């Protein structure tokens, strides 16, 4: 007994030691990775003098001040810009989700001539970098007289259901058993009915992933909004922050601005973490 006991115990001890070491190492690694974000949040409550004079290793604001945020409010209509950003970042993903899922469903299930060509065309946008089409897109908006209107943002994103979303939705729809649809069709349900009443309600994980990823993308975008929105009443927060960085010299005010840009995405990330790190999205790429 005791002969067997000793190596087993030492195995266990070794296991515990290696687990502890691993966890310790991972903790350090995670702290290093998260630190810039934590530091930004703390420092946005520091006075500008503290940023310059004190040791940079000091994380805690002393004195604690909200003057950076107050200063931001005096420069910009912050609430309005955050609101613009939020409402666009909810509306656009929903519309673009609808466009992508409709197309993906047709590509996955409906039989029509030219289907493969359409699939190839829509997916090819993945390889086409945005800057090639940026100037013409801008010119189109000028022609349509949509400059200085949120419609310019909504129209472009809603109509170009992104290649990644289409790909993800198609994979997902292919995994739904056909029996469901067949039964509905035998019962006389139209394709539209099948899609909206059977397929979409059964695709919640895919929808959540697409909407959340596209929320992040819309909230973080600045280039296209900067081109088409001149009036600062229409600006999103990320765009406002980018413009602010061109003239504001007070570093702690800029940090406060960055924090306002980080926090909404951070909250959604904490709430819906599993959709961000959803392996399905990436599995799609892995199969290239």
């Amino acid at each position, binding site marked *: 007994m005791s002969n067997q006991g000793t190596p087993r115990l030492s195995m266990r001890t070794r296991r515990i030691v290696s687990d502890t070491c691993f966890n310790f190492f991972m903790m350090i690694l995670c702290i290093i990775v998260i630190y810039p974000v934590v530091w930004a949040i703390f420092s946005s409550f520091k006075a500008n003098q503290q940023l310059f004079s004190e040791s940079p290793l000091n994380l805690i604001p002393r004195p604690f001040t909200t003057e950076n945020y107050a200063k931001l409010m005096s420069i910009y209509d912050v609430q309005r810009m955050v609101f613009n950003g939020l409402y666009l970042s909810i509306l656009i993903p929903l519309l673009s989700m609808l466009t*992508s899922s409709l197309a993906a469903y047709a590509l996955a299930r409906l039989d029509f001539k030219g289907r493969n060509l359409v699939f190839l065309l829509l997916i090819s946008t993945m390889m086409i970098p945005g800057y090639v089409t940026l100037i013409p897109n801008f010119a189109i908006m000028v022609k349509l007289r949509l400059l200085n209107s949120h419609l310019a943002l909504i129209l472009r994103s809603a109509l170009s259901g992104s290649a990644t979303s289409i790909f993800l939705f198609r994979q997902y729809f292919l995994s739904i058993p056909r029996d469901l649809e067949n039964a509905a069709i035998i019962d006389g349900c139209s394709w539209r009915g099948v899609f909206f009443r059977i397929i979409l309600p059964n695709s919640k994980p895919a929808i959540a992933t697409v909407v959340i990823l596209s929320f992040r993308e819309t909230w973080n975008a600045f280039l296209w909004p900067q081109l088409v929105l001149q009036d600062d009443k229409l600006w999103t927060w990320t765009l406002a922050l980018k413009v602010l960085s061109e003239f504001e010299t007070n570093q702690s005010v800029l940090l406060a601005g*960055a924090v306002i840009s980080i926090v909404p995405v951070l909250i959604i990330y904490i709430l819906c973490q599993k959709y961000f790190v959803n392996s399905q999205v990436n599995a799609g790429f892995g199969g290239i």
Partner: protein
Amino acid sequence: MHQINQDLKAAAARHRRKNPLKRQEALTGWLFVAPALIGFAIFTAFSMCYSLYISFTDWNILSDPKFVGWQNYVNLFTRDIFFGEYLWNTIYYVLFLVPSVLVISLFFAILLNKTFKGFTSFYRASLFLPSIISTVAIALVWKWLLNSQSGTINGILRWIGISQPPQWLLDAKWAKLSIILMRIWQMSGYYMVMYLTGLQTIPSSLYEAARVDGANKLQQLFFITVPMLSPTTFAIMILLVLEAFNIFEAVMIMTEGSLGTSSLMYYVYRLAFASYRMGYASALAWILFLIILVFTILRFVLKKDEVM
């Protein structure tokens, strides 16, 4: 069951030509893809052609475009003193970013793939976190972290006894590396998740067999993990090269292209929206696009050789 399916398919095929239901299905199909297809036609297909046309003109948006033939392209290669420099900067970004992110994200993924007791999902969430934040916001934060006097990074370097730490964004020798450092920090977690997916497809029996044959951890890594991950690595590499070529927001916020940090993409942005030279900017954008396209095709061709 399989037989029945086959029969059904054959019957459906026989039926297709006449069946009005089939026509209905095709019609619905086109209707469903219509919004995405219209968007593609306007914002991608038409815009690509239009952009190609613009690249042969002189155009400042306000006046009408003036056709100048190959002039923009000729100027780009013969007269433009910046083109070569920015191309080199861009290649520098690609050469440093791609391998570092590949290695680091694989390293993260291998660490997290172990079924260690602990806080694996917390670790994964933390490492992924940087990739969700807007580059504009986080570049502002890093600009300050890298501040030569009061930045945290130099604070730590001084604390561990380096009295003359680098000037980072103020020093031409370090500026590009600073931006690369920030991008590595930002992107590694994202590709880590792709690697994690890849790792889960490797059958554990391979490792068991290797262990029986007496392979150590390092051998297992190089003879099983890395080769088995090659499809994932291939996909990640293509995405990474694309991303490294397009590096732009970080440059814009952190250095505004000074001290040898300007990338070609940042040059396109400045040409188009600071100098309003749309034609010239479009020509440059097309050159950039063709470089990336050639690279991608080359990678696919080489991959075919590897597999066969």
